[in-house]
């Protein structure tokens, strides 16, 4: 049993390349759609993790109108250092590599996503 668990955990938080981009596999899903995070290295100081396009669809569906929900989404995400991109319907965290580890950024984004994706209609 532990062998099977180990095999599954080996893929959790695992980075993989997808058509030239880097994604981090979280095993998190919303209604069956995977919520993996895309990683961008902006320069040698800053990096960014962003939720996928299906997150915007989910937010539009669950809130009815994410523009109306925007201030609540921002307030829920802010303590984690996570921001809401209202144009793309995505949550993202931008961090300095020498101040925050990638692992910490993943957890912060995952925690913010956990709260935001349980919002109801606005």
């Amino acid at each position, binding site marked *: *049993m*532990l062998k*099977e*668990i*180990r095999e*599954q*955990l*080996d*893929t*959790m*938080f*695992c*980075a*993989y*390349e997808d058509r030239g981009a*880097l994604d*981090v596999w*979280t*095993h*998190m*899903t919303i209604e069956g759609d995977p919520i993996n995070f895309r*990683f961008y*290295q902006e320069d040698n100081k800053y990096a960014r993790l962003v939720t996928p396009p299906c997150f915007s669809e989910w937010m539009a569906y669950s809130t009815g109108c994410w523009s109306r929900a925007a201030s*609540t989404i921002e*307030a*829920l995400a802010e*303590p*984690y250092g996570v921001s809401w991109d209202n144009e793309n319907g995505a949550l993202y965290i931008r961090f300095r590599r020498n101040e925050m*580890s*990638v*692992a*910490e950024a*993943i*957890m*912060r984004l*995952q*925690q913010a996503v*956990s*709260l*935001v994706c*349980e*919002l*109801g209609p606005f």
Partner: protein
Amino acid sequence: MDARALNEAIGQGIRKVYYPDRIELYLPFFIGNEKSEEFCLAFDRDGVLSDGGRTLEELKKRVGDLTPYRETIRNILDHFGTVALEGGQKLVVRSFQTCSFGDKEYLDYAGGLSRMIRVIALICAADRIKVDEDGVVSLC
């Protein structure tokens, strides 16, 4: 940066430690203080996943009395179903969803862990959010 370098960077902060009788995961949770705290989540030899009581312990440390947050905590647990509170303190996942891949069936341990992380995230924020009986989150 390529996938290998990113995996190395992730591995420095999300540790998985394998013992003959258990697997421990150390995850850097943000629980409202300045810095993230490392939480240990463990699978025992029977496949039971537990937080060792850390989530409620940390919330209690921060807010003192858990009484005002009991309803939100109960609603979170009812909504997510698979995560249970045992002995009034420990968050535990005992059963996992069965999935199939081709003709092979397997238990989704990683999915159960992901649900546990979501429950921990919500409970850690119980002093900032309200969760109703349908699992809907709103700001306090």
